[in-house]
């Protein structure tokens, strides 16, 4: 089935801009041999041009529909699009009397259907889906077979009475028609039910059925198609048996193909750390490959891509970065929605073709009646059976909606369009009947299902805020229930889920998830992060509402925002909100608006103050600050397994080395003095309280270290204020982003300067977990420190003058070792030391420039940091 056949959509579209086509033939290119400055090459661009135009028309139509809320609230979009398609098709037909546009099976199955189904699978609520899998399968398999058989047989029975007049069809043709008209269509169901918002159980049953019945449809269609081809006389029992076997092969095979590609995709996404930019592409390409592979093996392609999406979602979402996750989410939604739009519009356009219409009132009306009636009967019988085994009963009301929600759609149309006119004599009748059925179900039932749902008071979904309690106790409920099932000795949902999650934790996650993701993936934690994020956003929003974030500096004054100020949590300074922002690349669905808000909140320096406050006051892990308490030279033993390459480590140095230097190497006599100075400065400066706190803790810790170690060798190289290092290192890291710097040279140089440094770098690498390194926060720190730099400069001059003089020649020699005309961080360091002796104004322009840099300019360290963050 679904062979590549028929005229492609592109060819069909050719007729539309007839006027343009005419002009193209007159273009000077052909009439004139001389070089034309401007040539009109319509033929060159025709096909993609027309496709793009159609997509544009469909998308513009969507905008127009939504201009009026009244219309879209009453009429489903799919119905509007069909009507628009009819209208456009009518115009083209009236203009040209050519009706060669239609939704060809090739385009539909290869390009339009996969994005919709992938979207459905990738965002499938797995727990709900598998919890109702039994019911879904029953409806999908038995229900579809029931619908196909009863519809086909009843139509044949009526045909025998002679009401329909003379047709050229036998029983097999009717059964073939029954099998293609029987299947509930996923596209139509999605389009209509997304606007209705019935409760999730009901939705998953109807929608799951429409997805999973594909295998049945494929098999029935293929079986009857081949039966029709070989003729009714040649159909033997063996052929029927083959048909049944092929059902299992097609469905299980399709599922296995999907699972295999899901495994592959999860595995690939585990290693995309260095190619973040094409990360989202893998999701689409590999899923699409699963679809094509299943198609190639003549298995159920829809099942394949559905299960690919269902199975990979957990691991992929955990592995890819948050930006990629957002990209995938929106790209997928966009493609699915676009494909849906085009499908419905072209369903309308396809109908405007006098050639395909063969009217037979009795056949068409009876088909409508039969599919509705048998759907109702089938649902009632199956629900009666199911309700005896279901914990959540399906009420009468649910059954009404399920019966009524049995919409037919483009799949049926594409299948009927695939029929061979030579084999199936009444193809045109089948096509026109299918079109009528599709239009009737999508337009009439789509229009009336909303009032029906309201009238029946069907339980609807309510969107509500996630609560930590609900998540936590929900987890407890799960454990309780699986324990009860164990005790009562039965194998139920909870038992199976428990087994599966154990298997998942023990094996699958270890293979398919990054180490960092393995640790941080926990639903409770995710909810916790999300709640904190919301607090942060509402906090900043509150600040912006008041016009400034100044109120943050006096935290005790009337704060109405939902932030808990009662527990200052002194140890939490270094972990960051930004870490939360980036880490939760998971199922948490923050919408675009929230993302925007977030970006805004990181942008300007005033907000960074808020940011620091948030850091302090939000709930978050109180992590230990490894580097500041570990004596020099001790390599922390943690994280030996992190799979970083050397290059990444070096990259991180640029981000955090100065912090470590500052903390751990200011151990000489200058430290106390410096600390005092900064203290003074802090009391003088009204801004940036939070920075002060950070500084203070660092100073004190290094003091402690001094006491501990007693005799610490003082390296004057590090005797300069961090304010001088910061800007350069910043610059350095941005340079590095452009790939200009030989990293190993830098680290070698630094290593030769101070034997302790590499160890410290190592620490800094691990310490990144705790360190706050949001760009803007960073920049603000820089600019803030520059205010005090003058004083510190002079002070340091007194303290470190002699030592530094002694050290100077050696450093000069080192400088020569570094190749190239760029400057490493270490080289800049030397420069900065020199500037002690000739105090000159700091590079304020540079700082300002840095501060104004967009957040994206330091992407690599960020993504790295995410890699390293651990809980």
């Amino acid at each position, binding site marked *: 089935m679904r062979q590549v056949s028929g005229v492609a959509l592109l060819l069909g579209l050719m007729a539309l801009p007839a006027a343009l086509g005419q002009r193209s033939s007159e273009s000077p290119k052909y009439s004139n041999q001389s070089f034309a400055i401007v040539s009109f090459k319509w033929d060159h661009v025709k096909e993609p041009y027309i496709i793009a135009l159609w997509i544009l028309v469909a998308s513009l139509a969507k905008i127009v529909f939504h201009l009026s809320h009244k219309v879209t609230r009453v009429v489903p979009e799919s119905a509007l699009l069909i009507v628009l398609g009819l209208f456009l098709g009518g115009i083209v037909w009236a203009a040209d009397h050519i009706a060669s546009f239609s939704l060809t099976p090739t385009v539909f199955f290869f390009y339009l259907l996969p994005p919709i189904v992938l979207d459905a699978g990738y965002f499938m609520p797995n727990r709900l889906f598998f919890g109702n899998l039994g019911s879904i399968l029953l409806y999908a398999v038995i229900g579809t077979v029931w619908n196909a058989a009863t519809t086909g047989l009843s139509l044949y029975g009526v045909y025998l009475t002679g009401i329909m007049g003379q047709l050229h069809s036998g029983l097999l043709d009717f059964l073939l028609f029954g099998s293609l008209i029987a299947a509930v269509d996923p596209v139509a169901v999605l389009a209509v039910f997304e606007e209705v918002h019935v409760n999730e159980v009901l939705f998953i049953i109807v929608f799951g059925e429409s997805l999973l019945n594909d295998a049945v449809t494929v098999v029935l269609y293929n079986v009857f198609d081949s039966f029709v081809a070989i003729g009714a006389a040649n159909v033997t029992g063996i052929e029927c048996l083959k048909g049944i076997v092929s059902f299992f092969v097609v469905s299980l095979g399709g599922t296995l193909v999907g699972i295999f590609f899901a495994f592959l995709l999860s595995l690939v996404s585990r290693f995309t750390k260095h190619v973040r930019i094409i990360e989202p592409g893998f999701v689409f390409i590999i899923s699409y490959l699963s679809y094509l592979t299943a198609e190639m093996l003549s298995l159920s392609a829809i099942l394949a891509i559905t299960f690919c999406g269902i199975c990979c979602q957990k691991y992929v979402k955990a592995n890819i970065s948050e930006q990629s996750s957002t990209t995938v989410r929106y790209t997928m939604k966009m493609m699915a929605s676009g494909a849906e739009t085009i499908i419905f519009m072209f369903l309308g356009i396809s109908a405007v073709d006098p050639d395909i219409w063969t009217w037979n009132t009795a056949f068409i009306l009876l088909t409508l009646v039969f599919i509705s009636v048998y759907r109702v009967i089938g649902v009632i019988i199956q629900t009666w059976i199911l309700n005896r*085994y*279901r914990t959540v009963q399906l009420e009468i009301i649910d059954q009404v909606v399920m019966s009524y929600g049995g919409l037919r759609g483009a799949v049926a149309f594409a299948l009927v369009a695939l029929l061979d006119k030579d084999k199936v004599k009444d193809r045109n009748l089948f096509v026109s009947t299918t079109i009528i059925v599709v239009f009737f179900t999508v337009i009439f039932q789509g229009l009336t299902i909303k009032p029906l749902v309201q009238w029946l008071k069907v339980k609807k979904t309510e969107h*509500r805020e996630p*609560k930590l*309690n609900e998540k936590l106790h929900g987890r407890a409920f799960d454990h309780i229930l699986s324990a*009860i099932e164990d005790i*009562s000795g039965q194998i139920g949902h909870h038992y199976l889920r428990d087994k599966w999650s154990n298997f998942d934790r023990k094996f699958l996650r270890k293979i398919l998830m990054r180490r960092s993701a393995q640790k941080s993936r926990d639903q409770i934690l995710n909810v916790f992060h999300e709640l904190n994020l919301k607090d942060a956003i509402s906090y900043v929003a509150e600040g912006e509402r008041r016009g400034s974030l100044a109120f943050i500096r006096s935290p005790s004054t009337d704060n109405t925002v939902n932030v808990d100020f009662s527990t200052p949590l002194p140890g939490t300074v270094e972990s960051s909100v930004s870490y939360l922002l980036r880490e939760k690349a998971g199922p948490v669905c923050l919408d675009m608006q929230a993302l925007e808000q977030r970006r805004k909140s990181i942008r300007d320096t005033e907000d960074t103050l808020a940011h620091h406050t948030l850091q302090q006051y939000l709930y978050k892990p*109180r992590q230990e600050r490894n580097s500041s308490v570990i004596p020099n030279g001790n390599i922390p033993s943690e994280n030996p397994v992190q799979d970083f390459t050397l290059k990444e480590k070096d990259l991180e140095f640029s981000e955090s080395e100065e912090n470590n230097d500052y903390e751990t190497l200011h151990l000489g006599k200058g430290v106390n003095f410096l600390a005092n100075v900064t203290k003074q400065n802090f009391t003088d400066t009204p801004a940036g309280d939070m920075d002060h706190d950070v500084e203070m803790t660092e100073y004190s810790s290094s003091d402690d270290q001094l006491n501990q170690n007693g005799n610490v060798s003082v390296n004057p190289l590090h005797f300069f204020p961090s304010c001088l290092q910061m800007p350069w290192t910043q610059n350095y890291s941005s340079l590095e982003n452009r790939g200009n710097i030989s990293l190993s040279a830098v680290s070698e140089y630094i290593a030769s300067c101070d034997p302790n440094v590499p160890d410290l770098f190592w620490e800094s690498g691990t310490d990144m977990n705790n360190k706050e390194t949001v760009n803007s926060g960073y920049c603000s720190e820089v600019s803030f420190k520059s205010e005090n730099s003058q004083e510190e400069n002079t002070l340091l001059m007194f303290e470190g003058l002699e030592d530094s003089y002694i050290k100077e020649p050696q450093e000069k020699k080192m400088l020569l070792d570094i190749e190239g005309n760029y400057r490493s961080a270490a080289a800049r360091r030397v420069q900065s030391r020199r500037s002690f002796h000739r105090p000159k104004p700091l590079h304020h322009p540079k700082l300002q420039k840095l501060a104004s840099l967009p957040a994206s300019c330091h992407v690599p360290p960020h993504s790295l940091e995410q890699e390293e963050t651990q809980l």
Partner: protein
Amino acid sequence: MMFCGTEDPFGQLGTAVLAVLPLSFLCTGRAWGAEKPLARHANLSLSFFSSSVSHSQITRLYSRFTSLDKGENGTLSREDFQRIPELAINPLGDRIINAFFPEGEDQVNFRGFMRTLAHFRPIEDNEKSKDQNGPEPLNSRSNKLHFAFRLYDLDKDDKISRDELLQVLRMMVGVNISDEQLGSIADRTIQEADQDGDSAISFAEFVKVLEKVDVEQKMSIRFLH
């Protein structure tokens, strides 16, 4: 998963009334090898395990009970429960086992066994419309919640303190998360539920914070027959 077992249609319809069932149990019990204890317990258990439970369910659970009962003395000890392999890896396993044992006892008979299991029976349609005057059935929403609440509340002071919550969290969330982080999650959880400001979750607060959750559904399993 949904299709295993056979169904007694009368039991499902809820037509088997209190009076009819004990008789049939006695008959079924006699057909079984171990009729004596079953006969003894079956009469008792019916009073709380309500009318809509088919006798096939009870016989199935009874055979499970006897298969767990290695001592063959008609009661289960904690060790009997702990022998269930899945329960051993359930993070809340020990607490759930404890919930089966009445205060201060370390044996549970079939009646007690069924009494605990009765909490997890789904609520039938015909029970919803029941008059509110009678004693609350064990599988009511409130009793289901109370069962969960007791798992947290170790010291039986009708409050989940921070420490108690933290213990459960540690069991459920696992070892990958630092104490501090668990602590802050516990703090936040309590803050979210706490209404009277005592930094603990009382049962009323517990019910309140879960009011939107479909507890009837999430704390029910369908016992096989």
